[in-house]
């Protein structure tokens, strides 16, 4: 099993940490993992993306040109990454701010309205956890228990009181993801 994921959005949407949680979860499940951010000059509001690979084999290239799954959180990322999903792969997106919906027919497309859900849950910071939940629902590459372990590892101990809230968000995300036909 090898899952190659791109997560892309605006800086500040929690893209990098979502990737990190997936990677950590992979480790908890004894998988090989690789997390590779786009990096560049520190400029706010630009786009940010991260490639995450989870596999039961050794991982070769950390930088990919095609993905099993693309998680897309803004229009520029949609423009760039829709075409890079492998045939048969998955595109998951939050419709908020998306002006041109994806059009490919040879991939599975899912939608999670995480912006709205997060707002409804009264905490915009759990936005990325909702997206993560949606992703794990459609691609259960790691088990929730390992995700929670990974989460515990990747956030500082002083924030561990937020773990239940995050777990909630992940579950909610899983419940709200819908396939777009």
């Amino acid at each position, binding site marked *: 099993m090898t899952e190659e994921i791109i997560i892309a959005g605006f800086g500040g949407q929690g893209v990098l940490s979502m990737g990190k949680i997936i990677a950590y979860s992979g480790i908890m499940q004894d998988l090989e993992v690789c997390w590779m951010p786009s990096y560049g*000059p*520190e*400029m*706010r*509001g*630009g786009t940010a993306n991260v490639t995450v690979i989870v596999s039961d084999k050794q991982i070769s290239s950390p930088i990919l040109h095609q993905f099993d799954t693309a998680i897309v959180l803004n229009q520029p990322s949609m423009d760039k990454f829709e075409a890079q999903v492998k045939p048969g792969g998955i595109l998951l997106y939050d419709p908020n701010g998306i002006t041109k919906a994806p059009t490919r027919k040879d991939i599975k497309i899912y939608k999670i309205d995480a912006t709205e859900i997060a707002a409804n849950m009264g905490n915009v910071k759990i936005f990325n956890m909702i997206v993560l939940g949606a992703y794990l629902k459609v691609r259960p590459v790691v088990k929730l228990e390992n995700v929670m372990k990974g989460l515990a590892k990747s956030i500082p101990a002083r924030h561990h009181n937020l773990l239940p809230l995050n777990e909630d968000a992940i579950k909610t995300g899983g419940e709200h993801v819908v396939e777009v036909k």
Partner: protein
Amino acid sequence: MADIDIKDIIKEENIVYKKSSILLDKVMHYCPGCSHGVTHKLIAEVIEEMGIQDQTIGVSPVGCSVFAYNYLNVDFQEAAHGRAPAVATAIKRLLPDKYVFTYQGDGDLASIGAAEILHACNRGEHIVCIFVNNAIYGMTGGQMAPTTLVGMKTATTPYGRDVDRNGYPMKITELIAQLPGTCYVTRQSVETAAAVRKTKKAIRKAFENQRDKKGTSFIEVVSTCNSGWKVDPVKANKWMEDHMFKFYPLGDLKDSTRDNPADYEQYIKD
């Protein structure tokens, strides 16, 4: 009140403020609210007003303003980290009738480039130096700069700048004001409309000094880097006013011409 429709106001002939023609159409890559944008604009306006577009050559080294050439419609050179004053020295010496300016950040000018700025100013090169002091390395992700205040948190001083570990903040503009080659040394800012206008006047004066071959003009612009400081742009300005201005007080440090060479000849007379 509404005795005139907004549509009737918004007409070409009623324009009182617009983007300078020297600014290119490219969207600046700067973070929202970054002081670099304002400072660029002022340079553009001065060049436009003086009508010296085709006689001006800009030099900016690395730092967030590395792409200044994408925004200012004059001939431009991107320089190595810290070396703009050396680059500008050569240009000005080879093209003595052109207008040459440098545009450097605080990491660039006061850290790696300390020798070059000191020597260009000490030689009294007839150039304009713009020094954007945002007390941090913006481009590389917010590390400590020589000008970072004690106690300030940055990526390389995560617990606050500490003198024993990281040294004192450097007031390089004060040093430069003492160099015999400088004619005009001033510290300005761009956080309010009034401040912006004063800074523009300073830049204008600097370019005029260059025209009049008065020596090196040096303009520090005390600035914000809201990304590096991790606050929003409005708060960044406030923080700057409250803290930076105390340590880096605004105003002219020197306004004359560079030292008279004749005064230096007496020393070897018998």
